[in-house]
């Protein structure tokens, strides 16, 4: 790239746009102030270039820079103007989505900090009250997201990347919350219901759900350690059983070599740490129970 610029500057009389990597940005500002408005009104989301009948007045008024002299490049220009307004529209949608996602992020943060109190051996029902409120907030945010996406049907996955990681965090938190409440795994359908999601418009992507579960598992070792410290010696056994089941269930999936696979691979370390805590508790004779079944698990 560096070598290119001298070549450019020496030849700038031929080159249509000197310093092409920075110029268009500034140029664009001024053009987009005036130009896309007209096009925005005319173009629908699905039909890229405006009809040819509009071609003449548009090109003559908006392209002072070139006089190509053949109608070939005039129609080229025409088409690209249509593209610009289309891309502007999707850019606007993306901005709106991002503003919702930012609120999601902060709701997630509030919920997470609330759930962290669980490690400080406070009574669980009391701790869960605040995070539970955040589920309602999130539900409202997902409703707004769904409203935006309803404007561009079928394009869920075009913008999916924008809310993906937040959704994974959301799943991990509500699944953890659900475990603390019930001692069971939050299923995909239950998660969708909790967040007011609906597969017909904005559903919960299954891979996001599964990734969220892996994140939840990361929280477990710390929870177990702190529960033991607080005197709950039965907790490691329960969590171990839960995580073992979860891990076994995950092994039924044929994962690709992707992010989810990586996260799943990390789950076995959580499992091992919980096992170690359980072992420690057991070996010190702190568990009230004495069963042969548990000894078998150790072996």
């Amino acid at each position, binding site marked *: 790239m560096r070598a*290119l610029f001298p*070549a*450019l500057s020496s*030849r700038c009389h*031929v*080159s*249509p*746009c000197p310093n*092409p*990597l920075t*110029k*268009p*940005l500034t140029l*664009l500002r001024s*053009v987009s102030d005036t130009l896309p408005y007209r096009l925005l009104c005319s173009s629908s989301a*699905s*039909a*890229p*270039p405006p009809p040819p009948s509009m071609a003449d007045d548009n090109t003559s008024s908006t392209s002072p820079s*070139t006089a*190509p002299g053949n109608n*070939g*490049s005039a*129609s*080229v220009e025409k*088409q*690209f103007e249509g*593209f*610009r307004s*289309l*891309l*502007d529209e*999707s*850019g606007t949608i993306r901005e709106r989505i991002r503003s919702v996602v930012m609120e999601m992020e902060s709701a997630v943060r509030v919920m997470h900090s609330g759930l962290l109190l669980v490690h400080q051996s406070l009574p669980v029902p009391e701790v869960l009250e605040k995070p539970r409120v955040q589920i309602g907030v999130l539900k409202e945010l997902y409703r707004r997201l769904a409203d935006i996406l309803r404007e561009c049907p*079928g*394009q*869920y*996955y*075009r913008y*999916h990347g924008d809310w993906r990681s937040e959704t994974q965090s959301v799943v991990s938190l509500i699944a953890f919350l659900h475990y603390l409440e019930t001692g*069971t*795994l939050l*299923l*995909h*359908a239950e998660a969708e219901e909790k967040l007011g999601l609906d597969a017909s418009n904005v559903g919960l992507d*299954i*891979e996001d*759900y*599964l990734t969220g579960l892996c994140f939840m598992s990361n929280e477990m070792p710390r929870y177990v350690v702190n529960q033991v410290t607080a005197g709950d010696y039965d907790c490691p056994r329960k969590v171990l059983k839960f995580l073992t*089941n*979860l891990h*076994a*269930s*995950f*092994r*039924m*999936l*044929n*994962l*690709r070599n992707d992010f989810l696979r990586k996260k799943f691979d990390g789950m076995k370390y959580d499992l091992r740490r919980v096992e170690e805590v359980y072992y420690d508790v057991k070996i010190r004779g702190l568990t009230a129970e004495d069963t042969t079944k548990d000894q078998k698990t150790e072996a």
Partner: protein
Amino acid sequence: MASKPQRVHQFAGTSVPGSMKKRRTMTTDCSMSDGFVKYADYLNGLNEKRERVVKASRDVTMNSKKVIFQVHRISKHNKDEVLEKAEKDLASVTDLYMSRLVKELQGTDFWKLRRAYSPGVQEYVEAATLCKFCKSGTLLSLTELNASLLQLSDPSVEPLQINVLDYLLGLGDLTGELMRLAIGRISDGDLEYAKRICQFVRDIYRELSLLVPHMDDDTEMKKKMETMLQSVLKIENGQAQSWL
């Protein structure tokens, strides 16, 4: 792919991945395992579909490249027959391979699997626009291109329409091919044609430079813009040398 069935074999103790549905690991409690059976089905279906799309996309790429090579066989005297053959080849790419993509991509798959099929579609755009330019000296528009794909799908289902982004990325590659074509024309002494190509490529470059910052993910396009600028320079330099 080969390692995955093995994994199943190793861990879940089943020899055929499909039979997993009925199997239940001993320790897993019921609802959890039922849920995961569903997720496994979903993931298997998605992965298989993605694999098929990738394959179809690769076939589209390979055969579109052949069309492009055919176009490059052009010289002063054989223009018509070379292009006729190229167009015939392109039509068969559309019928044989693009049609497979069309069948796979319905509803949300269109965006979800875009990464899997985008390279093929870009190459196809490149081949189609190159043919069109050589034939008539104009740019094949996205509308025209998409119209030619309409005939492939069943009227009852949603037709596959190439999206703006893939079209633009395909145009980015087109300029590279046009550069080769122009250099070939110059060495053939056909300076008039080279000049037309040069003007065309400049137009495309200029238009694209306005669009790049608006694109969903512009890193790929930015790279292409650099290459494109070099193509423009090469044609210009080639022209300049031929005058000297």
